[in-house]
């Protein structure tokens, strides 16, 4: 007997939204429950005290144990990440990227104006700059080959920012989603989140995927369909369907991160 399995997607963008007929109805009720879970959890951690400065939780706060060192967070690693993200932004609007490093650098300089990372970049000597250019080009080529064309009708938007104030502004959840497709006003769940990392995928990447889904749910009050992450270091892509359990898990991870932050401060 011959068994036929469903064909694997040809590109990352195709895998992102999956089979149209299998999408569930848009969930617009879970967000308020998650907000209550977070508010209750924050009250247990902070009590009635108001911190002098708000605690800011980012995806990077969940990615790793504060005691470990992640080389992707070094200035060079961060510059590489920013430049690869610029390539993704250009690809999302159908720009043909032929010289990834040069084009990403031009776009970044225009966008950032002045920043600490740009200053670090300008301090690199020619050898370091050449190594960075080679590195960014290699990562970008992996991205360009794997991503595929982003259909314009999927409403792609890149570097989507979100900020959620909790507990009267004592805790701020900040997030940037590299690429988002789909509509929040559709009757079926259609929003897919796509994160690009230049590091190999690990446990931290999984937490980041969940965090993106959580913040997007809190921001729009609509649960996204799927959250994905793509590593330009390995060409691997992980994708998770978003449900209430995944979101609750992420809320608990946020609370754990907040607890560690308050203890360390």
């Amino acid at each position, binding site marked *: 007997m011959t068994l036929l399995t469903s064909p694997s997607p040809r590109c990352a963008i195709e895998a992102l939204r999956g089979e149209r007929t299998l999408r569930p109805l848009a969930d*617009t009720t879970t967000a308020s429950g998650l907000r209550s879970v977070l508010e209750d959890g924050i009250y247990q951690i902070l009590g009635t005290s108001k911190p002098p400065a708000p605690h800011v939780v980012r995806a990077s706060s969940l990615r790793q144990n504060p005691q470990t060192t992640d080389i992707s967070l070094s200035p060079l690693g961060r510059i590489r990440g920013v430049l690869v993200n610029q390539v993704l932004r250009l690809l999302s609007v159908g720009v043909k990227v032929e010289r990834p490093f040069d084009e990403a650098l*031009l776009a970044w300089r225009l966008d950032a104006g002045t920043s600490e990372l740009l200053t670090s970049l300008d301090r690199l000597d020619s050898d370091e700059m050449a190594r960075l250019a080679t590195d960014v080009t290699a990562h970008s080529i992996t991205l360009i080959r794997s991503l595929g064309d982003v259909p314009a009708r999927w409403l*792609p938007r890149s570097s989507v920012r979100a900020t959620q104030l909790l507990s009267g502004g004592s805790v701020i959840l900040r997030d940037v989603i590299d690429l988002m497709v789909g509509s929040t006003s559709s009757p079926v769940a259609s929003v897919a989140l796509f994160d690009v990392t230049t590091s190999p995928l690990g446990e931290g990447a999984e937490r980041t995927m969940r965090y993106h889904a959580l913040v997007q749910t*809190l921001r729009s*009050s609509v649960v996204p369909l799927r959250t994905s992450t793509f590593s330009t270091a390995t060409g691997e892509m992980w994708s998770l369907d978003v449900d209430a359990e995944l979101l609750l898990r992420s809320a608990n991870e946020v609370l754990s991160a907040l607890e560690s932050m308050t203890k360390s401060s």
Partner: protein
Amino acid sequence: MTTLLHRRHTAPGLNELIESAPRERASLCDDHRRSLAARFRAIASVDHRRLDAWMVEQAGKSGGGFRWSPSTARRTLGNAALRRLTHETNLSMIEAVNDELMDQLLRAAAGHARRGTLAWWLAGISHAELGLVSAEAVNWATQLVEIARSLDFEWKVSSSDAYYDVARARTTLRGRRDLEIVRDDARVIVRLRSGSPGKSAGPGLRSDLTIETLAHPDGLAPARMIGIWPEAGVCLSVDGTMDDLRSGARDLVRTAVVQQRAKTSIAA
């Protein structure tokens, strides 16, 4: 008493804000306009003054000089692209933004763009940089179309911002507006904002309300002015009542005073 309302930004929440907009609206007559002009004239200024909600929110503090960037260009291009999309429904959002960019570049190539205009700036940047400008404008326009499509009411993209020149006071007021919803004969104005609303978001919204009313030929206030901060998932609104209009006018005058004081102290 003013009427600032705070809601989570959801489709039913936004529709409810529009639905519940008050039927009775205030209007500004010639006496109001004369009184406001007299107050602005009392704040002596050599230069021409330009005031908007952003300056009110910043308490009159002037930031660095304006410069074009993908973030400052996105609203102009994004709103224009959405306007184009409502007429040419076969276009995708990216195509509509690229068509707008192309129009700007053609204007510059034809020599119709003055130095410092958007077209002039766009003509001087590279292909990759134009791609980034396009990405920012697509983000803006997509956010706006998502909001518009979630409405149960007829909407249109505003054709321009509201401008009002205060008579003999060397002052121009600019009120921003992105979407207009007309139900019965009342209009509701929607403004899209970046970031999160700060403590001065209410005064900013009231200033926009006042300028919108002053710019109306009959001085009719909109039923409600709604500010949406999609990044934070929050909506704020103020009603077109006389109290809110007065409060908005006071904030604008106060901003002009603070600006004038800052200029005077620099000169001293």
